[in-house]
């Protein structure tokens, strides 16, 4: 796979529902929101509407085409879904009613589960946020940013430090993290959800 997804992507034939594609499509379709992948007729309005398409290895339309063609590894290890800001401009324009961001999130969750999301830093940010959400019940933005940069690129923190400092000086980054009383309820929710998902 060349770095230039645009060019390379054009050369890949779109085999709608190839044998490999069938399994991959079924896997995605079993998740809420994922079933819409069957409705796409490849018009490309999503790609034309996306504000971040130029940053993506494959445009949203190509992601669907590649998925149906069974290009599992190419899709899951691409950066496309991690560039999606969930702005839903594609959703409201899609003539087939597909919620592309929801589909992108399904792909993200599979990529994370299979360890294919290593090349981008967005998953680290999301995992850091989610860990705080389920352990403390509150997200502490200063702690979130600190942990994110420590885990990804501590040097990049320098670039962003002036922003953090300004926020701090304007009373917008409390130093202390909040924690809710019902953390035991959150623990029970997460444990039970994992039990159900593990059984499937």
């Amino acid at each position, binding site marked *: 796979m060349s770095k230039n997804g645009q060019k390379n992507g054009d050369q890949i034939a779109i085999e709608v529902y190839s044998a490999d594609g069938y399994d991959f499509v079924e896997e995605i379709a079993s*998740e*809420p929101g994922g079933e819409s992948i069957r409705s796409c007729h490849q018009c490309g309005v999503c790609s034309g509407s996306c*504000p*971040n398409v130029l*940053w993506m290895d494959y445009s949203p339309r190509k992601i669907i085409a590649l998925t149906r063609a069974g290009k599992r590894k190419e899709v899951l290890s691409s950066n496309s*879904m991690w*560039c999606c*800001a*969930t*702005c*839903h*401009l594609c*959703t*409201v324009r899609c003539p087939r009613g597909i*919620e592309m*961001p929801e589909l992108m*999130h399904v792909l*993200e*969750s599979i990529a*994370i589960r299979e360890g294919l999301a290593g090349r*981008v*830093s*967005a*998953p680290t940010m*999301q*995992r850091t*946020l*989610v860990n*705080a*959400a*389920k352990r*403390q*019940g*509150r997200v*502490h*933005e*200063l702690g979130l940013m600190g942990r*994110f940069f420590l885990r990804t690129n501590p040097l*990049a923190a320098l*670039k962003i430090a*002036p*922003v953090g400092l*300004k*926020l701090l000086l*304007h*009373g*917008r980054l409390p130093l202390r993290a909040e924690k*809710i*009383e*019902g953390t035991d*309820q*959150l623990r*029970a*929710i*997460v*444990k*039970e*959800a994992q039990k*159900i*998902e593990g059984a499937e």
Partner: protein
Amino acid sequence: MKQYSYFPGCSLKSTAVAYDESVRAISASLGIELIELEDWNCCGTTAYSSIDRLESIAVPCRDLALAEKKGLDLVTPCTACFRTFERVNSHLKLYPFLKPKVDKVLAAAGLEYHGQVKVRHLVDVLINDVGVEAIASKVVNPLHGLRVAAYYGCLLVRPRVAFDDPENPESLDGLLKSLGAEVVPFPAKSRCCGGSLVISNVDLALGLIQRILESADSNGAEAIVTVCPLCQLNLDAYQGMVNSRFGTKFSLPILFLSQLLGTALGIKPKALGFDRGIVSPDKVLAGHLQESVR
């Protein structure tokens, strides 16, 4: 006084504390009582649905279960929280197979949720419950001469909303005009600010932020008005970075709707959190803040 369960969300406790302060400050004048949902937990935002699909429904369901017991509409000023809860409700309706799973998960925490909570964004409550005319009738300090760009962002109006257009929304324009402000044309009014991508992909986000600032600035806006904590943070705190990256000289204060609303209602600037802005609004609002009467 109409009562609501109030869900501030994590951002309103930190980077958007001015939003929380100003919303609480205006509520009484508008005849609404916001009762903070006791021991609410983080909704998990869209990030959670990338990490774990079932948990991303079940964790915010704890809040909905707590709110259902109170029997009031759940109102949040945060568009990301609003969209997360709206997604939970619509998923539970669209995908009946989720219901028994979610029931089981909640039962493990001694909770239950029957899908009855009406989740509302603050803007929805202001426009449809309080009403633009009623708000206009309470204005004691009209914002005459103030040129603002009304910024809706993405998630207030997308993927679906009952009270406005998803690409060319106008509800905030009307509300701001009723306060006496001049609303400039703003083609980027519902374009994306990048949201949390500003942390994981700052170069991408800076480009999006630049385009929004440029659109407001070139149309003569003196300030941008927003109803989302993430939009405010990105346009305000990263404006300096945009200026050095793109060689621009933007100096646009990014105000929460509730801050301007409070000013028009005559509430003291101190109660509205204006000093939290990184791009100071003092110059732009000078004439208006001195006239505060309450």
